[in-house]
């Protein structure tokens, strides 16, 4: 049985209004499950964390009845009964919180559930915080188990749909896809390449953080932020390595200076683009791994609980032995960007520049 720490409890500042105003992308970055239902129990919104832990594809879940189609294990007085009573509750500000067990074929999840109502709308939110992950309960009736993805959408393998072991859809794409993307950007908006690919990486990294959190929860019952940094580094490096992006190694020797260095050997992004380097615009093509840098920054920011920035400062696409990414506080990014903008490269140049940039220790608060 795995205990979940206090630090993963849903913030008390969350209310239905602040949740309802968030975009789907913002809900996807949250480290707990969010489900929106109408008064009949039809699913209106379903965030990434819930999708990951329930191993259900959001596209197959939306529009179905939560209590009968998706989670029959909740069709009880303790859950559905509370929801129905909450729907008919006269006080719009009331919050209801209770503990429950979600029974899946692949395991039981002890959760705390919070019910919220969107003011002046027939929409309700379930905030679901996992407390413990255990083995399946042997005595639980099979017909009441939560839905399996393969039952929601049978015969997908004949419809050109691939799913991984966690029922997430994926595509088998060659690394040349990144080369094509880079070529496209070179043609349409060459100056936007760094901005575009970094932001793409950040968006990807926010989802990666949720994925890593869910994996750690299932395996250890703890959250990433509680694990030793060395173990987190190994998990992060393994995550990207297993997906073919190259081998990342974390260098902690500069942390006392406020710099975390990550070297990436055999970066798929760097190897996808070197042939693109052109005589006319060499400065635009020498750094290729902004996508990875953006992704690292989002993952590490999620763990740190504050904004960190990652920049690639050396790249194999420009002839270095490997790619080097530095991670620093958001407040010191200007010093790094000034060096890179001046066309200088290399970890030592960046380190010198950062020594001149005061550390914003107050930002820890």
């Amino acid at each position, binding site marked *: 049985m795995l205990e979940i720490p206090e630090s993963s409890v849903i913030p008390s500042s969350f209310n239905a209004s602040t949740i309802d105003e968030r975009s789907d992308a913002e809900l996807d970055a949250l480290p707990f499950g969010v489900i929106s239902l109408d008064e009949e129990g039809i699913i209106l919104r379903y965030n990434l964390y819930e999708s990951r832990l329930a191993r259900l594809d959001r596209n197959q879940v939306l529009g179905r009845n939560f209590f009968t189609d998706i989670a029959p294990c909740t069709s009880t007085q303790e859950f559905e009964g509370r929801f129905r009573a909450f729907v008919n509750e006269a006080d719009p500000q009331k919050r209801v919180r209770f503990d429950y067990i979600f029974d899946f074929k692949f395991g039981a999840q002890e959760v705390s559930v919070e019910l919220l109502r969107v003011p002046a709308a027939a929409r309700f939110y379930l905030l679901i915080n996992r407390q413990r992950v255990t083995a399946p309960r042997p005595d639980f009736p099979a017909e009441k188990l939560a839905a399996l993805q393969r039952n929601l959408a049978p015969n997908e393998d004949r419809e050109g749909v691939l799913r991984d072991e966690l029922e997430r859809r994926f595509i088998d794409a060659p690394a040349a896809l990144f080369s094509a993307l880079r070529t496209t950007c070179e043609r349409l908006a060459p100056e936007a390449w760094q901005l575009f690919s970094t932001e793409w990486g950040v968006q990807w990294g926010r989802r990666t953080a949720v994925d890593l959190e869910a994996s750690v929860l299932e395996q250890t019952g703890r959250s990433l932020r509680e*694990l030793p*940094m*060395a173990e987190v580094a190994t998990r992060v490096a393994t995550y990207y390595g297993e997906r073919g992006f190259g081998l990342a190694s974390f260098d*902690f020797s500069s*942390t006392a200076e406020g710099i975390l260095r990550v070297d990436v050997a055999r970066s798929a992004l760097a190897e996808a683009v070197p042939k693109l380097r052109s005589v006319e615009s060499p400065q635009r093509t020498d750094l290729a791994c902004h996508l990875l840098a953006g992704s690292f920054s989002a993952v590490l920011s999620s763990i740190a609980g504050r904004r960190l920035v990652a920049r690639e400062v050396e790249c194999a696409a420009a002839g270095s032995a490997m790619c080097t990414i530095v991670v620093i506080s958001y407040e010191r990014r200007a010093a790094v960007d000034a060096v890179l903008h001046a066309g200088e490269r290399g970890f030592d140049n960046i380190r010198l520049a950062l020594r001149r940039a005061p550390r914003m*220790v107050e930002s820890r608060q």
Partner: protein
Amino acid sequence: MNVTRVKVAPILPPKPRRVRGTFIVEPEKAARSIPINWAGRTAEDVLGNLPWEGAAPDPEMLDAATFLSFL
């Protein structure tokens, strides 16, 4: 005429507190700002390893949240 001389001690400004290294924030403030009690460690435990006191944080010993607060 009798004159009573009164010896008056000069009023000096208080001595600044001596701190080790180059403190940027007061220790109390830093203690509040550092996540408490991850991996069973308190802020006071961690304070001994603060970078502005010269020691590098240990990635094997420190939890990720505390370690990344050094950036």
